[in-house]
């Protein structure tokens, strides 16, 4: 929009800009406040838990209230139930040597906390941590001669509230500064200064970084206001408000459920996730993946091995799809063919079946003992094969499945392209005495290429991402060697101890590969069209 906006009352426009920016900044500040408060709370509770545990170890009563304390004795397995480890606890204040069984029908509910903490102590040694139940309690275990002394703090009272008075004061002060600036003709400075006041709470709750960012944002909004950019933007929104309100629901849904997750995925790639703890590790995950993490190139967990398998997988499938699809399309295009419609309907059946069902069916067919494929082999006098115990046969089983379910798409695309080749070309060629082979290579195939090129790009992306077939047919067997990049990323996240960071970093790498491939693919397609 290049039309000049109608002049607006400077005070209203300044208050609008400052107001919108303040609401956004206050939302961020509120998040910072909650994080800051929870952080302070957690460190206080941890300190209290340690103090209480040390008091229990000395035999004293803890200063602060607790929900469970005691010295827990090592686990003993009972004779009747060897897998059920039983423990005893020495309650504080009990006479020396006096122990009671931990847990049981009449035991206090807090015994479970002690039992879990003792089990964790056995694995990790002394520790202090927040309880994972969201109750805001901390638990600590310190070593004593008789076993770990454990203390769980009492549930905290209502958390500290937001300092509303200060915020109301800041907003009132800001409104006054904005008005003063607007009335004196320096609206930009007024808006900037008023917003910059929010850097003070930002400093208190989020540190220098957040304060600096707030200051920069304030300056940005002030400059934009002074230059009239915000007025033009508001005018553009007002002029297109019907269109934008129609677009808004989908735009918001896409932003929340696609773009935000995408951004979150990018960020997670720089973190390590272990036992629910997030640690910033910079580029470590990427380095680990790209260097193979000390694994040999033929190790199925080495990134380059998996990439090789993925490329081979994609190439083999797309090749089979194109060759089979085009051949069948050419056969279906013969003018004298009978039952053409029937053949066409039957041949696209694999496309119609949900692909997870196809994958499960083929998994069943490739089963060693009862699978149909082995029965067929035995029927013609060959030995049955244990399909998923060696790389070659497992890979072949995956490719067979995916070829079966994927060729109809190429066939339909090729059929459409064949239909658009003018018949006169063939007739002219026939008059000139061209052989059938010459007509195929000189007319048909050159005309198929431009239509097939985008379908090949699309098909290769689908195959590259074909999670269901790999996951359900071979399941990566043997030993993860038939996994492709997307199934490997999935396993990092959900099957190898929630290594979210590794999964997300691998996801970013996969995305970059796809992006490069698409850009390259569109280039080639365009050149083809231009030629």
């Amino acid at each position, binding site marked *: *929009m290049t039309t000049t906006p109608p002049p607006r009352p400077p005070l209203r426009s300044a208050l609008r800009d400052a107001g919108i920016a303040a609401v956004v900044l206050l939302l961020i500040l509120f998040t910072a406040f909650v994080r800051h408060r929870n952080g302070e709370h957690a460190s206080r509770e941890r300190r209290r838990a340690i103090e209480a545990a040390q008091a229990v170890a000395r035999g004293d009563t803890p200063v602060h209230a607790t929900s469970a304390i005691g010295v827990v004795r090592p686990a003993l397995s009972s004779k009747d139930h060897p897998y059920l480890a039983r423990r005893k606890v020495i309650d504080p204040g009990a006479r020396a040597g006096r122990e009671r069984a931990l847990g049981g029908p009449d035991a206090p509910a807090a015994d479970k906390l002690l039992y879990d903490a003792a089990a964790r102590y056995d694995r990790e040694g002394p520790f202090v941590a927040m309880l994972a139940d969201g109750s805001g309690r901390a638990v600590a275990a310190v070593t004593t001669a008789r076993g770990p002394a454990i203390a769980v703090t009492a549930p905290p009272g209502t958390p500290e509230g937001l300092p509303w008075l200060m915020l109301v004061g800041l907003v009132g002060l800001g409104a006054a500064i904005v008005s003063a600036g607007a009335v004196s003709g320096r609206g930009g400075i007024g808006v900037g200064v008023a917003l910059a006041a929010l850097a003070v709470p930002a400093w208190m709750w989020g540190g220098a970084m957040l304060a600096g960012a707030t200051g920069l944002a304030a300056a940005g909004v002030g400059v934009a206001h002074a230059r009239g950019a915000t007025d033009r933007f508001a005018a*553009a929104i007002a002029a*297109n408000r019907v*269109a934008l309100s*129609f*677009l808004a*629901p*989908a735009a918001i*849904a*896409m932003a929340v*459920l*696609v773009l*935000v*997750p*995408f951004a*979150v995925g990018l960020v997670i790639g720089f973190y390590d996730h272990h036992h629910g703890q997030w640690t910033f590790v910079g580029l470590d995950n990427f380095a680990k993946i790209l260097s193979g993490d000390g694994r040999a190139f033929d190790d199925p967990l080495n990134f380059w091995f998996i990439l090789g398998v993925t490329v081979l997988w994609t190439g083999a499938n797309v090749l089979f799809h194109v060759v089979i699809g085009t*051949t069948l399309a050419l*056969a*279906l295009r*013969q*003018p*004298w*063919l009978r039952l*053409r*419609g029937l*053949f*066409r*309907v*039957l*041949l696209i*059946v694999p496309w*119609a*079946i*949900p692909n*997870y*069902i*196809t994958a*499960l*069916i083929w998994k069943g067919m490739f*089963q060693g003992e*009862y*699978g*149909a494929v082995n*029965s067929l082999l035995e029927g013609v006098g060959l030995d049955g094969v244990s399909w998923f115990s060696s790389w070659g046969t497992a890979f072949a089983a995956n490719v067979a499945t995916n070829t*079966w379910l994927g060729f109809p798409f190429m066939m339909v695309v090729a059929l*459409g392209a064949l239909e658009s080749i003018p018949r006169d070309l063939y007739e002219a060629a026939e008059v000139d005495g061209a052989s059938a082979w010459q007509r195929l290579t000189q007319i048909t195939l050159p005309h198929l290429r431009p239509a097939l090129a985008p379908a090949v790009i*699309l098909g290769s*992306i*689908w195959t*590259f*991402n074909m*999670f269901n077939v790999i996951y*359900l047919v071979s399941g990566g067997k043997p030993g993860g060697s038939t996994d492709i990049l*997307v199934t490997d*990323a999935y396993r990092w996240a*959900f099957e190898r101890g929630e290594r*979210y960071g590794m*999964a997300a970093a691998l*996801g970013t790498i996969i*995305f970059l590969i796809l992006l490069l491939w698409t850009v390259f693919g569109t280039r080639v397609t365009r050149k083809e069209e231009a030629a």
Partner: protein
Amino acid sequence: MSAPAHGRTRRPSAVAMIAVYAALAVATAAVLYPVLLVVKKAFEPGRQFALSASPVPEDVTLEHFDGLLGASFAQHALASIAVALATTVVGIFLACTAAYALSRFRFPGRRTALTTFLVVQMFPASLLILPLYVLLDQLHLLNSLTGLVLVYSTTAIPFCVWTLKGYFDSLPRELLEAARVDGAGPARIFFTIVLPLARPGIAVTALFSFMTAWNEFIMASTFLTDEGKYTLPVLLQSSVGQFSADWGRFAAGAIVTSVPVMALFYVLQKYLVGGLTAGAVKG
């Protein structure tokens, strides 16, 4: 599709005819064989996949279908139907409004929005699973069908937006202009004129959304942890899990699950090819 009218057809050589028919026959047999095996398994007693390679059952029984009725199949089918219908309704609402804005209005950012809808399709679903898992966890929407509906309706949006935009583009401009002159507001024009006229397009995108939600496996299997909430794909996969595979029940369930969507697919088929190769990339 009937054979195209073709003037003086030369008699093909016998070799060519045999080759063409042989190729089509082999391909059709290869396509039908696994399907027939599943049908056979559904009607044959026993839990094992197949004891013989023949696609003809030796013994016919309805026990697997009866078993479906007895099991919690109906409950899972209901979950799947609810998810797919809700996805369709939400997805159609989002796609219709967005496509209308992109088709009938010119505003700054329109081209960007159109390209975004294309590019977004390139994000493979398997990569968004992890961040979506983390987000849904924060929102307490893991293990809930609502969370699944939200995720599904956005994955179908780009295709639906592009298809519907084509429909809206083809509506006569004069009609909408006349309505506006008569004093109808934008909402009224949209609901009483545009939507009724675009019914065929809406039907196509509705079927597509339904099919997408009905067929989705991996997100459902990752997000739903409570067995009672499983949608049909997760149920079917778990029925042939590692330890207790019951292929008879799987086959019966697979037939009941896929026949409706296969019917939908044949209705949709000609729109799918156009929509997908128009540049849309489904992951």
